């Protein structure tokens, strides 16, 4: 087990080094010029050159890379041009926003996709199966910003059911005291039910938009996994012994089928965390994705580098955790360790 962990870590380190190098190169190749930005709207070529020298941007690339890595080692991810704040502060304050949105979206996806997948597996090849496939595939076929905008139009503008897409909380509510950064949890911890309801209301539409995107992989793997378990020996025995179908399906098959689904969930979560940049833009969600997109458009190096690095570390950590948990749950995997 421990050997497994150590082996995984040995693989992670070169990956992270690769990520750091690629990010650095990519942001340096971006067409923007932070020196011109800092020099201000009336600067001429000479003062821009001066500022470029001050910022150290005229030094050779390897030298810049070394100073970047040195700064990284002290936890200094640089400053953002667009918000003027240190990147590490921005990431720290924005990450919970993205995580809360993604988790909620995943929750929506699970409560729709898992039952659909189970139904599709139990009634294989029936119209229900085809319906499940069509619905989930439709969900993943729409560009996520398109769904988001239409939802805002229909549910907020026309019907007035959803609250204004003003971000995490309506302006007249104050954010709950920061414990986890998740408004839902923090407001409950503070006993503030009004804020809880307000935060929840703001979450519904963006989470739904995001969740639609995750329906297909989850439904698909649930169905596949259930199918393979349902055709296994012990289920056949259970059925033959006369156990009622409901108990067979949910009690026995589902429990065993959940393992691959759990692994996929991890993958889907990290995929969503990176992909929710567009949802955040549409719903004015102050998350890490919208921050990175704005920075990228403006060739604001530091936030993009910080964002990518954070995501890479999260992704790697998450996959390691899932592998370990999986190993804990399923002894067969452990043996192959």
């Amino acid at each position, binding site marked *: 087990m421990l050997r497994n962990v150590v082996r995984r870590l040995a693989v992670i380190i070169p990956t992270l080094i690769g990520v750091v190098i690629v990010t650095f190169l990519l942001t340096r190749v971006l*067409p*923007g*010029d932070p*020196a*011109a*930005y*800092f*020099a*201000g*709207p*009336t*600067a*001429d*070529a000479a*003062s*821009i050159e001066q500022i470029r020298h001050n910022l150290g941007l005229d030094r050779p690339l390897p030298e810049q890379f070394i100073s970047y890595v040195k700064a990284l080692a002290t936890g200094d991810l640089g400053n953002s*041009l*667009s*918000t*003027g*704040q240190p990147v590490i502060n*921005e990431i720290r304050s924005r990450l919970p926003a993205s995580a809360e949105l993604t988790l909620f979206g995943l929750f929506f996806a699970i*409560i729709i996709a898992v*039952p659909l997948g189970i139904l599709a597996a139990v009634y294989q090849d029936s119209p229900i199966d085809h319906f499940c496939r069509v619905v989930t595939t439709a969900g993943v076929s729409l560009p996520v910003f398109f769904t988001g*905008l239409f939802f*805002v*139009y229909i549910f*907020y*503008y026309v019907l007035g*059911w959803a*609250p*204004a*897409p*003003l*971000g995490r909380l309506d*302006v*007249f*509510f104050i954010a709950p005291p920061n414990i986890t950064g998740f408004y839902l949890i923090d407001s409950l911890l503070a006993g503030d039910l*009004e804020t809880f*309801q*307000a935060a*929840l*209301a703001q979450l519904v539409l963006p989470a739904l938009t995001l969740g639609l995107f995750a329906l297909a992989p989850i439904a698909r793997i649930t169905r596949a996994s259930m199918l393979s378990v349902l055709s296994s020996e012990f289920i056949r025995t259970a059925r033959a012994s006369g156990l*009622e179908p*409901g*108990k067979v*399906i*949910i*009690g026995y098959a589902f429990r065993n089928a959940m393992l691959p689904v759990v692994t996929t969930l991890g993958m889907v979560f990290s995929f969503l965390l990176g992909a929710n940049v567009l949802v955040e*833009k*549409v*719903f*004015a969600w*102050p998350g890490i994705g*919208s921050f990175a997109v*704005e920075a990228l*458009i*403006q*060739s*604001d190096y530091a936030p993009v580098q910080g964002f990518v690095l954070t995501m890479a570390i999260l992704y790697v950590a998450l996959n390691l955790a899932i592998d370990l948990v999986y190993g804990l749950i399923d002894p067969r995997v452990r043996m192959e360790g």
Partner: protein
Amino acid sequence: MNRREFLKSSSAAAAAIGLSGLPLPWSAAYAASRSDTLLLISENGPNNLDIQGVGTNRPGYEASWNCYDRLIGYGTKTLEGGGVSYDKDKIIPELAESWEVTPEAITFTLRKDAKFHDGTPVTAKDVKWSFDRSVTVGGFPTTQMAAGSLLKPEQFEAVDDYTFKVMIVRPDALTIPDLAVIVPCVFNSELVKKNATTDDPWGLEYTKNNIAGSGAFKVEKWTPGTEVLYVRNDDWKCGPLPALQRVIWRTIPSAGNRRALVERGDADVSFDLPAKDFAELKKGGKVTVASTPISNGMWCIELNVTKPPFDNVKVRQAIAYAVPYQQIMDAVMFGEAKPLFGGPSNMVETTAWPQPTAYATDIDKAKALLAEAGYADGFETTISFDLGQGITSEPLAILVQESLAKIGIKTTIDKVPGANWRGEMAKKSMPFMINFFSGWLDYPEYFFFWCYHGQNAVFNTMSYQNPEMDKLIDGARAAAAAKDTAAYDEDIKKMISLAWDEVPRIPLFQPYLNVAMQKNIDGYVYWFHRQLDYRSLSKS
């Protein structure tokens, strides 16, 4: 758990988390506070609360304007049409209660009761420190001060606690107006000095995130990229106390959502919506739309005269005749602009600014001119514009592209992301640009100084250098300083006529600054900086 139980529990959960669609119960306190709080939304928020900071964006100017005071301010006037605008010719007291002008200096007497937000009194030494800072930090603030001949710390003197003197180094009609713009604001020098470091002697890092001012509003909380929370300074003495107690400014990136919020009454004020939305909101009548032509501002096609074939005046004139002006007014601006084309003559008769050129869409004339220039078969070029202004520039570029194709000019469209645009402008490498410029000080010679003068400032995107033009611009400024109206008028008319004839910059239209507000908002005033002044607003 069997299937039945599973499904039952899901529906129970769904009901519990309020998906039934009932409106949320607002608390009584919340309902009360809505009436004295203004909710303002825009696409971007400030990246710095100090206009003298490095790389401060336009929203940052708004924070500076409302939270700091200046020595003097501008009064207001009512425009034809009923709107209220600042009055560039009316200077009113702010921190200075009176002043004396001699050819050598302007002496200001400061009011005795003004205090900074932390309670310390505002004295002349604070003014001196602030002015020294503005001319020393470099970048945009220093250039703006220089536009009014405010150049060196040696010009500023704190005579005593409440007397401040500005030495005049050369006669300049713009000196006094320049003292009322956002840049020469007064900082709490002791507070900032306490937070300065040896690397940062002017405390720019501190003022980036903190207001050290005496203005009508204070920043209670700033979440960069998301919102700014202002509260009123109840001890403000430089004018009548503002009606609003709180102002909340939220960043909403999507233009469609901004419109939806304003239309449904969930936001009070919205700037930067597309022209089409403003035109429709006006017609819809649910909200008030205040429309003011942007003073000293024009959208133009800018041709880099150092890049052939744009060095040939006939080519430029050909393009001026090929632009689909009316189509642009209709399909891009939806009428929300004043046309700057189709005038009687390029030899202008008045000093009105901006005023129309005599060019109008005439494809045959354009083709003829192009042939005369030797480009009967046309040529290829790139149209560049700032993606940040894409709502207007993109459809404009498409229409221009199509029209130019009719006279044989093939173009590719290059959208330059916002922050890169300034860098590209400084490089002066783009041959054909669609761009907007407006000058804070509403005088034509000011516009020409930045955009046409041979000093080749960054705003002279055409790299236009003509000694004849320089003579006219310098002459106009000198005439203004000497109050010689006759010479001034003559130089201005010649200046504009030369620009229209040479046409390195093809004027298209003067846009309106549109602001959408709920019907219960009063007191909107148009300012040259095009940002919102909270001091005059009220909500009934």
